[in-house]
């Protein structure tokens, strides 16, 4: 195990890599533990875990009791959550607290917070090896409602649907919540099995950053990690990249006034330098007001209210998301493809490239200003095996040329075009 990684100190405790960086610039600190498992049919059971775990621990009989314990720790935020990174399901537990120096009597907020986190993660309130039936049924209903409520955010819904269509048959198609039908058919014992599976077989990482007490920090983290069951982590399978195929197209209709167009492009596997070129490519295409999509699609042709491009590094996707009038969809897709072709041909002005570069460098320079941002950056670097701090990461972008940006987009192809359009009532 290395002693430093991406600007953080590094060690391994109880078989878990631990990255930490005390920083007295901050007035708060955060500790986070994350575990990754492949996205599969157990996604629904996993996604129910945050809600279930917040309903109490062996020590805190119900949710208000748990919430009161956090309030007494000066509003410490102890949150379990799930996320999706490419084709992985990530379970995260984080403790966010003010530094003890700012609280009367300088209490041990790290020690008390880690104890609360351990209660939440390792000692949930169970009955006969499962979450209590009443609690399970309520949380399953809640999770079903929450999954359906995604439709209220039309842009997020359109993206979920676009990925489901483009990546049909691949783990990427499974939504983070596992799908409404999967949630509805869950049995009471499944979430506890998913918790144990995450803890025993998940690929784990612990991070700590901010105004951390330097004295006996690792001892306290070690004490927390020893609360977890014995582990035998399983590796995450590599993502599959489909062969180039004809563009798919889907139109779905709903009562909406503004249509949403999502274009899903595929990108082949590549090294870090190539991905740096791709980051600039995405920025040039749709990374803000300086981009082709903003200037051409929105400002020049007034075809859309918003149009941006983002990368999904873990799966190798470029997503273009546009909010527009249905009648403009074909023209916008044509224009997006035209701009992609121009950029791939290296038709990039110096001004454009320098503006995109300045944006990327500025974003990287500000990563260290936020505890959460820096931890997220470092966790991502760990997963990608990139031992570079934000400052070192900037070096990847400093000398990238227009030709390298164009080259980085080699092998890019449009897999699917998804449109959420108005039905008769929405028009």
């Amino acid at each position, binding site marked *: 195990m290395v002693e430093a990684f991406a600007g953080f100190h590094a060690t391994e405790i109880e078989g878990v890599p631990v990255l930490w960086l005390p920083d007295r610039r901050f007035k708060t600190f955060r500790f986070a533990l994350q575990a990754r498992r492949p996205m599969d049919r157990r996604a629904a059971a996993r996604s129910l875990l945050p809600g279930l775990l917040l309903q109490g621990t062996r020590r805190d009989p119900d949710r208000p009791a748990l919430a009161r314990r956090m309030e*007494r720790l000066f509003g410490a935020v102890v949150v379990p959550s799930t996320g999706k990174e490419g084709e992985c399901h990530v379970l995260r537990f984080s403790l966010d607290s003010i530094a003890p120096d700012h609280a009367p009597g300088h209490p041990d907020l790290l020690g008390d917070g880690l104890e609360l986190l351990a209660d939440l993660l390792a000692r949930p309130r169970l009955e006969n090896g499962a979450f209590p039936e009443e609690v399970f049924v309520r949380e399953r209903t809640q999770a079903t409602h929450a999954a359906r409520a995604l439709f209220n955010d039309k842009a997020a819904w359109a993206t979920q649907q676009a990925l489901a269509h483009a990546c049909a048959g691949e783990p990427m198609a499974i939504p983070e919540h596992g799908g409404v039908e999967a949630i509805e058919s869950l049995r009471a014992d499944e979430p506890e099995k998913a918790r144990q599976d995450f803890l025993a077989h998940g690929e784990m990482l612990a991070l700590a950053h901010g105004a951390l007490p330097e004295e006996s920090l690792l001892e306290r983290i070690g004490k927390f990690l020893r609360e977890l069951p014995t582990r035998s982590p399983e590796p995450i399978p590599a993502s599959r990249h489909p062969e180039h195929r004809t563009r798919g197209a889907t139109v779905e209709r709903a009562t909406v006034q503004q249509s949403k167009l999502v274009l899903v492009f595929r990108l082949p596997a590549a090294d870090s330098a190539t991905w740096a070129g791709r980051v600039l490519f995405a920025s040039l295409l749709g990374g803000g007001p300086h981009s082709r999509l903003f200037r051409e699609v929105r400002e020049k042709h007034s075809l859309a*209210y918003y149009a941006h491009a983002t990368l999904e590094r873990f799966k190798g996707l470029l997503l273009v998301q546009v909010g527009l*009038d249905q009648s403009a969809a074909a023209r916008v897709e044509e224009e997006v493809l035209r701009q992609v072709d121009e950029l791939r041909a290296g038709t990039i002005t110096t001004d454009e490239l320098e503006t995109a570069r300045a944006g990327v460098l500025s974003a990287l320079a500000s990563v260290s200003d936020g505890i959460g941002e820096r931890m997220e950056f470092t966790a991502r670097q760990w997963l990608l095996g990139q031992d570079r701090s934000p400052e070192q990461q900037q070096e990847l972008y400093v000398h990238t040329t227009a030709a390298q940006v164009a080259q980085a987009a080699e092998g890019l192809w449009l897999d699917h075009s998804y449109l959420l359009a108005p039905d008769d009532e929405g028009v």
Partner: protein
Amino acid sequence: MGQHDFEIHKDRLLDEEVWLATTSHGLRLRVVPTERFQEAAAMVSFRYGSTDLGFVEGGGAHRSPEGVAHYLEHKLFEDEELKVFDRFARRGARVNAMTGFTRTSYHFTATDQVLENLDDLLHLVSRAHVTPENVDKERGIIAQEIRMYEDSADYRLFFDFLGGLFGSHPVRHPVGGTVASIADITADELLACYHAFYRTGNAAMAVAGPVDPHAILQAAEGCKLASGKAPESVWEEDLGPVLRSWFERELQVPRSKVMLGFKDRDVVGDPEARLRRHLVTEILLDRLFSPSSEIREDLRRRGIVDDSLSFGYLSDFSFGFSSVSCESDDPRAAAEALRRTMLRPVELDEDYVDRVRRKMLGRYVRSFGSVRNLAFGQAQEALDDITPFRMLERFSSVTAADVVARQREHCREDSCAVAVAVAGQQRPGNGSAIPAAQRS
């Protein structure tokens, strides 16, 4: 320029300071110099928002169509060369703006060339390149933005709710207006509003980050905004009973949504007193609806509310209201339970008071966690001439009796309105992965 140009306020608990000054043209300035961050943030804020639809100047009354403040915000990002965004982007800075009920704010964050960005931000707000042609061109973009908001059930519900609380106050209208109301906005209208409200006496600027306050003051002195105060906005007093206690409409949502709340029947002019009222109301709502509340837990266990429950309080010189919202399969039962909960006299014991004090201290410390928070917070406080770093003092003066009294005053039967978004048609798909996609 020396230190005497500034009045310096310190927070000893957090070891932070804010420098206050007013430029020779009357622009209020606050600077939070800190080396804790690499990034700097700046905000210029005007006391002009979507509710400022009428004013009197030069003896004449002026009425504006709904959405004019937001339209003007869009137009200020345009100049003769159409390069406003580019100038910031070339330096890696991110610039944006927002319009609310009572304020319009322009801001940027940058890790380099802060003074150059500041000059551009001040230039951006100090002139209006508004022509009939470019006003017409922007109309389609703004209409798209309005349609996007109108696709949000939460947005529709919120304005249905405000439309029930208020019969005449312009807070009942969507901030961006409607597609119909913006059709009436002209270049002359925008220029009239710009000249009326974009003045130093109606503005404040705040900058936070690794900056030299003297250099910031010097840049602010170069601001070309017109001097003087803005005209008084005028609106019909709207402090009587609610216009309608119940409103529902069918929307394409997977599950019905309810929003209920109470309207303030009086308003507080003094900003400090208004902040205190705000705080007391927040504590009341926290006592009733935070996750630690046994009252919320009881509603949840009975299946009346779920984790979608959220709550808040918003107020300004001329209006104030609380709101509680949640999803429900039985919106009538949920609304009735929430109404009763807010009307039933609340009890606050010592344990609660101790916990909420700790929680508020934590929240205050966290507010120093980013330059954006610092700059944005100081700009808003500067507009109302609020003394910096008074939050903890304000909080420690609140008693349980204040909260009980505030509930009696605020939660009155005839001050309550409910809006419901009734679940309508089915959405496409069901949230599951769809196995087959058509390829063409």
